[in-house]
């Protein structure tokens, strides 16, 4: 799956980089890569066990963190999922949940490419 990354988001992170400090973009993306699978896991677990509150919290978290790294498609999907969980719309959650893992993987690939190109 080919996923595009919002350049503005990445520029914003770069702009927050302070001289002499570890590369912020690398760290943020690293965090995104390491932390998000846990969030996705709890989200899917929530869908499996029909725990809408767990789904909502996980979607909310992933919505923000993906937005920061420019993974706008993933962020948008999480937003829809958060709304569906909030509305107790279980079928919608199931449908939306299916694509989250793929979207995440696609976003990670795109970010990796983007970083290695910059390096």
């Amino acid at each position, binding site marked *: 799956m080919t996923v595009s990354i919002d350049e503005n988001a990445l520029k914003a992170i770069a702009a927050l980089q*302070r001289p002499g400090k570890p590369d*912020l973009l690398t760290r*943020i993306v690293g965090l*995104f890569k390491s932390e998000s699978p846990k969030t996705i896991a709890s989200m899917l677990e929530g869908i499996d066990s029909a725990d809408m509150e767990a789904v909502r*919290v996980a979607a*909310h978290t992933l919505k*923000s*963190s993906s937005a920061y790294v420019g993974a706008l498609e993933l962020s948008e999907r999480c937003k829809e999922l958060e709304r569906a969980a909030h509305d107790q719309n279980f079928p919608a959650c199931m449908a939306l949940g299916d694509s989250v893992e793929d979207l995440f993987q696609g976003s990670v690939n795109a970010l990796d490419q983007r970083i290695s190109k910059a390096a």
Partner: protein
Amino acid sequence: MTPELSKSMQMVAPGMQRERPIVLHVDDDIASLMMAEGALEDAGFDVIQAADGQEAIERFKEHEPDLIIMDAVMPVMDGFEAISTIRELSIGAHVPILMITGLDDLDSITRAYDIGATDFLTKPINFFILPHRVQYMLRSKLTADALRSSQSKLDNAQRIARLGNWDWCLCTNELSWSREFGRILGVEEGAGIATWAEFINCIEEPDRTNVRLLSEQSVEEKLPFNVEFSVVSRFDDSVRRIRLEAEPHAQESGEWAYMLGTIQDITERTNAQKQIHNLAYYDLVTGLPNRAQLTEQLRYTLKSSKRNDTKFAVLFLDLDHFKQVNDTLGHDAGDDLLLQVANRLTSVVRESDMISSNDNDPESQHTVARLGGDEFVVLLGVINRVEDAARVAERIAQSISVPYDIGSSTVTVTTTIGISVYPADGDDTESMMKSADVAMYHAKESGRNGYQFYSRDIHEQALSRFSLEADLRSAIENKELTLAFQPKVEMSTGRLAGVEALTRWTHPERGLMNPGEFIPLAEETGLIIELGRWVLRESCKQMQLWIEAGWPPMTIAVNCSSVQFTKSDVIEDINEAIQYSGLDPRLLEIELTESLLLQDGEKGIQILSDMKALGIQTSIDDFGTGFSSLSYLKRLPVDKLKIDQSFVKDLDKDSGDAAIVTAIITLSHNLNLTVVAEGVETQEQFDILRGFKCNEAQGYLISYPLDIEQFSLWLDSYREQILQKVSGL
């Protein structure tokens, strides 16, 4: 408490800010924390972080940050609960909190404000804007801090000064006020006093009316005012003295819209002033005025005496042998004695109040003061006669010498009194005090327990009149008084027209005394009332006896003094004399002086009418010496005028006197009055008066005043004498 914490507490004192303010950022999204950290640190903040609400509270207590950025949705404890908890901490009540919410989450935004968030920001956070928002919030917080601090300082200042402020809207009449205003009046905030009228009603009368009138006047004239008044505090029912300052204020449009002002509780200051005044002007041992207060009163009295031309007296006294009491029984006993002496002095002076002619005038009040040691001064604000001072001195000496119970002992002291009298003995406070002091030393030289006037003349005068007064009192009881009779004749016929009764006093030591020597004293002391009654009764009785003895009925004239006229019921006395003697009232004639009638014209007319109603005759004595208005004379129900002897005396030499006499006679005849000439001593005078058609004559030419026996003899032979005198008729 860790050193770091105490330092940070010190740093958050009101109005101060850390050099690098601390921001606590709470978010479960580590990326968000990371990005914000850089932006905030660049902008000059130190950042501490927490991943959930629970941790946020820990961090907050630990670091006391200047501002919190709080994510709403977090695991463990969400942002809402964390904010609620922090706001309940005393250090967290005012810290600015920036809530991070979802863009479309309106419910969360509303909820965030409800629980005490300061501001909100939506996700995703713009990290470039974030530091500016934080900066702005910190600035507002400083302003709010400064305002809170200023309010708290003002509140403290008002509390310390016991001064509250208020403002009164002239359009709505509403009154708003500070916390201290409520504390002073004893009312809770938001209760009790909401309008100016309600405030006025808290004030005690008579101050209330005064404050209301002043405030109305101030509104009317647009002028500031101040006033003092008393209120009863609703907290503890204590009476508070309040000073109010007020000034009107205009709106920007120029209309007078507000009255602004303060109230200050000056109860303690007022009490302190009273206490200072008491300490400065009153003696601590006896509670009497001290020297300073006496001097002030003396100055008043002097001024008043000068203005009203009255007399006053200073009695200077000390206690004989007081030192021995102090030495043998101790100072407490000495103080006790002084207090008892003070009480006796005060009651003697209070009982002597009747000697003051105008009791209600504060300037003429009597004052008892203690100068110090065993020295006292009694100031008699107004005395009519020097004997009054002597009488008070005598009473004081008598009262002081009664033994005292001091603890288990009985003590006797006496006093020596020196008296100065204004204006004779001094014309300022110092000389009056000095004269009294000198007089006291003279008194001591001539033996203790006595009194002495400063001036020998006054002393003798007082003593002489004092003893004469006592003698006169006993003279009435001891029947040392007798009557003398001077006949009057009808000029045209020589017939006996009547007699005038005169009083004689045969004093056991001074011998025979004329009325001029003792009547004025009798009038001053009021003895004249009793004396007058006696004369009335005896005169009527004597005439009735003569009539019963077969003499032809004739009028008996009795003099009536102004004191009898004004201070006793003279009609009652006359009635009683008539009843007692059985005399035909038509034979009684009351002689009144012209000046007496002039004192109170309407009352004079009334009494004369009452006399007429009794059937007795009335005459005006010494006519021509007063200044009767002729219209008044016309209204007086009198029967006779007696021409004063001063006009008769030089009748044959002075044409002016002759003119006056003619005028009086003509006037009298026109008014149908009988005219009597007094003091007729020569045949020439008699002839001239007869020529003027004067009706009756009295004087040495006819007869001197005679006692009962002499008069009987005179009466036997009067026909022949008179017939000879008027033979030229």
